[in-house]
């Protein structure tokens, strides 16, 4: 039995690095400190995996040698007129660097999963910039935390514990105790509700407390947390205060708040379903904190307004810096989606949707982004690595993937690999292969190798290196 400490968790953008793994006979038997998602990965990652390269022959996937799979993949890429190489956010920066070299060699469009998560955030950062910080800065100093259209309780389970409401910093402490007392209140209300349902033999719907203005807890001299979302998430339950926004009106709300924090007036009585008087109180709260932070999620980037929601949110943050210190940060999903933006940027100048087909990097999301290219049926081959677009892209885009040759570099069985013509299963990065990845706040950390991969599985980087080598050979032969 071995105990390995300081392991980084290759799941979400919180990228906790304090995991302790207990390993017996090359198997992880316990994952201490990990959240439900992290533990699920460390303990089950291997349950449904593919171990040997597969190629589709006569409609059936058959096992082949690594060399044959690599050659087939290289051939598909060399033959393609407008190949798309997509994914990248669940692998190491080292693999991404090699991937970009391969993409350049074959004249591919390189896109990563930020195209369907925080791509819009990047577009607005390119318009207005972003005042931000590393997470520790917020742990030490933030006295006002806003989760806007993000739900860390479900998507980043240890975010609050490590960096915000339940963390202890130099200048601000954990608000764990006040949360517990509030929780007791909620529990007893729920008990009453359940009891009354039993008695009345009907579903008694729990209506939200419509309070006059904001609850007093948000005015206390301690760290406070506000959740703004279209539905009452689990994170909202834990917060001091929750604002429910009518779906698709975040943009109006953000712009209205900008007017209010600048002491302006509005002609309307309510915005996004919230009365102006309440919004004025919220604006006061924002202006009067010592250091505020907005953590925003896909509820802003995927809904009506997309990047302009972020434009307004960042501009609100900029406005607030005239009055106090205020910062903003996207809640990045995959453990290395920040890293893939970073590596793409240092090599090509652009963070995602990079079209290398003309021999130099070109960038224009909407034109050079995966979903658009696929929906227009322009790609004639796709390579997917460390991602599962078929599960997450709209049907119209996935159809193009299904129509043309598809290479999948993925250890897991996914809807994407189910459609693939070539499958090369790699070692799991961060468990069976090492590397580097970036936390959501741009802090780079090592991915560790804690167990040996199956003999037939190379790392993503090695597989890409082999394909690159093969591509260069095929190119030479052609000339």
């Amino acid at each position, binding site marked *: 039995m071995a105990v390995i400490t300081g392991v980084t968790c290759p799941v979400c953008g919180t990228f906790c690095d304090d995991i302790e793994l207990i390993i017996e006979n090359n198997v992880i038997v316990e994952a201490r400190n990990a959240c439900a998602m992290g533990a699920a990965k460390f303990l089950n990652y291997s349950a449904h995996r593919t171990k040997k390269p597969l190629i589709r022959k006569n409609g059936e996937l058959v096992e082949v040698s690594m060399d044959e799979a690599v050659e087939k993949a290289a051939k598909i890429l060399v033959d393609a007129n407008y190949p798309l190489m997509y994914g990248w956010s669940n692998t190491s920066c080292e693999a991404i660097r090699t991937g970009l070299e391969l993409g350049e060699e074959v004249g591919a469009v390189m896109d990563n999963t930020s195209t369907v998560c925080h791509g819009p955030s990047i577009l607005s950062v390119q318009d207005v910039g972003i005042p931000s910080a590393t997470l520790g800065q917020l742990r*030490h100093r933030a006295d006002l935390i806003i989760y806007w259209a993000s739900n860390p309780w479900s998507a980043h389970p240890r975010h609050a514990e490590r960096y915000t409401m339940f963390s202890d910093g130099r200048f601000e402490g954990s608000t764990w105790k006040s949360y517990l007392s509030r929780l007791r209140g909620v529990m007893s209300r729920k008990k009453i509700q359940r009891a009354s349902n039993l008695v009345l033999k009907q579903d008694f719907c729990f209506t939200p407390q419509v309070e006059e203005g904001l609850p007093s807890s948000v005015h206390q001299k301690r760290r406070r947390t506000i959740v703004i979302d279209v539905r009452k998430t689990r994170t909202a339950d834990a917060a001091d205060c929750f604002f429910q926004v009518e779906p698709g009106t975040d943009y109006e709300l953000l712009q209205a708040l900008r007017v209010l924090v600048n002491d302006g007036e509005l002609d309307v009585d309510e915005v996004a379903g919230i009365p102006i008087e309440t919004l004025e109180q919220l604006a006061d709260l924002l202006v009067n904190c010592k250091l505020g932070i907005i953590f925003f999620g896909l509820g802003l980037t995927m809904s009506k307004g997309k990047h302009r929601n972020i434009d307004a949110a960042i501009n609100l943050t900029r406005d607030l810096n005239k009055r106090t210190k205020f910062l903003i940060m996207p809640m990045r999903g995959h453990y290395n989606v920040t890293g893939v933006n970073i590596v793409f940027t240092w090599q090509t100048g652009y963070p995602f949707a990079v079209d290398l087909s003309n021999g130099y990097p070109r960038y224009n999301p909407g034109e050079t982004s995966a979903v658009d290219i696929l929906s227009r049926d322009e790609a004639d081959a796709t390579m997917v690595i460390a991602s599962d677009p078929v599960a997450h892209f709209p049907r119209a885009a996935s159809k193009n993937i299904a129509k043309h040759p598809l290479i999948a570099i993925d250890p897991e069985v996914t809807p994407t690999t189910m459609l693939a013509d070539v499958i090369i299963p790699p070692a799991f990065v961060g468990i069976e292969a090492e590397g580097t990845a970036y936390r959501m706040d741009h802090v780079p950390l090592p991915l560790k190798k804690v167990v040996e991969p199956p003999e037939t599985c190379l790392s993503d980087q090695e597989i890409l290196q082999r394909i690159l080598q093969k591509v260069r050979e095929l190119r030479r032969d052609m000339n």
Partner: protein
Amino acid sequence: MTELIIKNGFVYDPLNRIDGEKMDISIRDGKIVESVKEKANGINASGMVVMPGGVDIHTHIAGGEVNSGRLLRPEDHVKDVEVKTALTRSGVGYSIPSTFTTGYRYSKMGYTTLMNPSMAPLEARHTHEELADIPMVDKAAYPLLGDWWFSLEHIRDGLIEENAAHIAWMLQATRGYAIKIVNPGGLEAWGFGRNVHSLDDVVPHFNITPREIIRGLCKVNRLLNLPHTIHVHTNNLGKPGNYVTAIETMKCVEDLAQGDKPVIHITHIQFCAFKGSDWSTLSSGAGEISKYVNNHNHVTLDMGQVIFSNTTTMTADGPFQYGLYNITGNKWVNHDVETETSGGIVPFKYKRSSAVHATQWSIGLEIALLIEDPWKILMTTDHPNGGPFTSYPKILAWLMSRAAREITLSKINKRARKKSLLPSIDRELSLYELAIVTRAGQAKALGLKPKGHLGVGADADVAIYNIDPQRLDISKEYKVARKAFKKAAFTIKDGEVVVKDGEIVKPVTGKTYWIDVSTSMPHEINDDIKKKFREYWTVEYENYPLPDSFIHSSFPIPVKAEV
């Protein structure tokens, strides 16, 4: 064993006091040697200038802030692209070039060593990943340590030796080269949106002043025997009247100097040489700064020259960048780093028509020309803050030619022109002096022994320019010289020809230098850092230091400390 001989060039090697002598340079296995065999490959450099490879003491080329700058500015990249060739990778250029393009473009100008001056220790891994993707040059990075909580607390408590040991650990952990100090105390204050405004302002919550921080780290630097001095970006940078702060900063370590050895490097001095009480009364503090530096030997400077261009400003000085955002309304990135530092980015356009910008342009050149000893003032733009490094040849032209200065002077803002000291300055730098401000002086200030000269044993990093000093009067024909400096006839890196006629002919990777300090007290530091680690940072102790295997072509320079 590879040999190469550069024949009949006019050699400018100021560290060896060679001033335009016609001579051969022999190279074997990447080093300069006494002589080589007759059949060695030869480069005919007759009618050309031969210099050591260029060294840049302060250029933002890699890491978190540089890359955030890249991400911020697609509109900057789109106008300047590099197409993939059989030898080189593609990329984008202008003010913040992508990594490969950065290496190629420096190399094409005859540069071979670059110092990345700003590295948040927590994000050192990022800086080194990018450095690995910058080909053609040797490089190193300076960790930001002036607002590190350990520094603030140790120095406040008078624990200089303890701090020295901790910084030795930090240099190893981050694979750093020198102690970088940016707006000391101001960055910690910026954590809550505040700043410090003089050397004696107290840093909120820490009960220490910028003066104490600078002096403390200067002492630490000496205790550690680091090859470079402390590398300081002063308080009040970019504010009218700040030349006083710059002089006070130099003064505050005067008594720590021993002999003629510098103990402080003030970087991008142009940005700290503003006289006047506000922007409307802004004038040059170059006279005062130069006077001080001419009378003192404990300080080196670099220019931070401004170029009239659309560039991207980036520093660890968060409050300064916030100020710049307020002035311009431009897009603004802020990035505060827990326990250590901050950072900011704002795109900026220096316009000839602006009195302030034109005055800044003048200040940089004034200082470079008024300081008599070229070893004290090195040529930089603080790339990309004053302008992109690709404009270095322009600056050389201004330095070597009064005529070149006059042409630009005639095009700038009238008010700035009237106030400029440049018309009163006749000095024109010689090729020998240019070699000092672009390589010899830079390497000397860095304490980088194998660089900046062509003596036996030096690294065979050589730049050959198509300038015939016997035929060309660089003062009059500065345009020809400018063109020659833009595209080196040859760049030789570690004994190999990597650039010919301004084009890459052989892509190579460079070394990464870092300072490996041996101290006598490593154990206690680790315990102290370990104890406070979880309290200060949000990463685990064991994930913080970079393993040597992570560093691309790692090249430690061993140093023995006095603690």
